[in-house]
């Protein structure tokens, strides 16, 4: 399974692997918002956590259809499914690889982009914490969506529509955690809910993803 993880990471960082795509998209969204909203620092700093969260979620969504599509097209997915690796292990590794190449860079670049939105200084800590807690859930749910739509040509649209509602709870609690933390309010409830969602989907969804993947490979 480590071999598969290393291969996926290597593929992502090589030419055409799409590593920079989500990052560039995140950057574009966050840079453009101040131009659209206008140069009011008070307003910008108030909506900054929300903008960062929506941007991170959309950037994540953009790269989902690559999780299984490339392996399906060149036949490696059939070969992987018949290899000694359990299907549950394959989908878990795919989700981890997706998080390392998409979620982790978003977490790290978010405070830098927070400067552009006038995020208050105490907000940096909270935006990193909330994204670090929430983005693994985005990758795991996204892997489930990708397993559902594998084999459908141009399945990206269907994938986005399927996954978007499942992303909403993570977005609500993630953005709420970042907002409350930034304003210095009590953060216990959104933090527990966000961590709970991440733990629950990480524990349960790989089994569902593996089941639908097996059906889709028939």
């Amino acid at each position, binding site marked *: 399974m480590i071999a598969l993880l290393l291969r996926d990471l290597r593929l992502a960082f090589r030419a055409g692997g799409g590593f920079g795509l989500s990052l560039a998209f995140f950057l574009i969204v966050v840079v453009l918002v101040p131009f659209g909203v206008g140069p009011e620092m008070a307003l910008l700093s108030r909506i900054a956590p929300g903008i960062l969260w929506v941007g991170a979620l959309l950037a994540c969504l953009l790269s989902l259809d690559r999780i299984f599509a490339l392996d399906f097209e060149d*036949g*490696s997915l*059939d070969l992987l499914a*018949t*290899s*000694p690796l359990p299907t549950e292990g394959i989908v878990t590794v795919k989700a981890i690889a997706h998080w390392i190449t998409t979620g982790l860079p978003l977490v790290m670049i978010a405070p830098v982009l927070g400067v552009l939105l006038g995020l208050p200084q105490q907000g940096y800590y909270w935006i990193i914490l909330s994204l670090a807690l929430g983005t693994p859930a985005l990758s795991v749910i996204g892997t489930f969506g990708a397993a559902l739509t594998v084999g459908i040509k141009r399945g990206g649209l269907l994938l986005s529509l399927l996954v978007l509602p499942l992303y909403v709870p993570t977005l609500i609690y993630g953005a709420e955690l970042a907002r409350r933390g930034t304003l210095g309010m009590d953060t216990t409830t959104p933090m527990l809910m966000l961590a709970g969602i991440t733990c629950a989907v990480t524990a349960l969804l790989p089994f569902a993803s593996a089941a639908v993947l097996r059906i889709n490979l*028939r």
Partner: protein
Amino acid sequence: MTLRVSNLTVSRGGRTLLEGVSFDVDAGQALILRGPNGSGKTTLLRTLAGLQRSETGSIDLAEDDAVYAGHADGIKSTLSVRENLMFWARVFGTKDITRAIEIFNLGDLIDRAGGALSAGQKRRLGLARLMVTGRKFWMLDEPTVSLDQASVAQFASMIRAHLAEGGSAIMATHIDLGLGSDAQVLDLSTFRAQTPKLNASEEAFL
């Protein structure tokens, strides 16, 4: 006995293709599947590999014994030949890729990216993958497509060596590999389903 298939029914897309398929493959033996296009060779192989479910019948095959190679070779175009082979070796828990590289003359291509290989070279890499898996039972779907004559001869000698070592293989191919008495031929048209009927529960999804 390495593989025993009895009374297997195989269907694709809700249509029953083959009925009552029964055969045995012993260690050191090869079974060659023949039949016109669409007769169910690929579907039968996918069913044996566990990618599809059979409707009825039983497949007796030792676990962790088989390796499947389909139409596509599963080669990553941005990884080199060595990286591609090493990946599969590690997935199957083996280490040695030098023998496979030697047999399929991949030595000169070892650092070339998968995307820069010709169709025949890709196929050779795909077949070299079988060797690095260390599995005994090979399931091959049209293994000689896009190979030149010299490579076909290499492939045939590789199969013979594999059988001599006690391995076995089942393959769908139209080429005579000259395997002699080690190979049985199974004509799938004799198992053709008489009443291709739609499975009611699956019909809704087609």
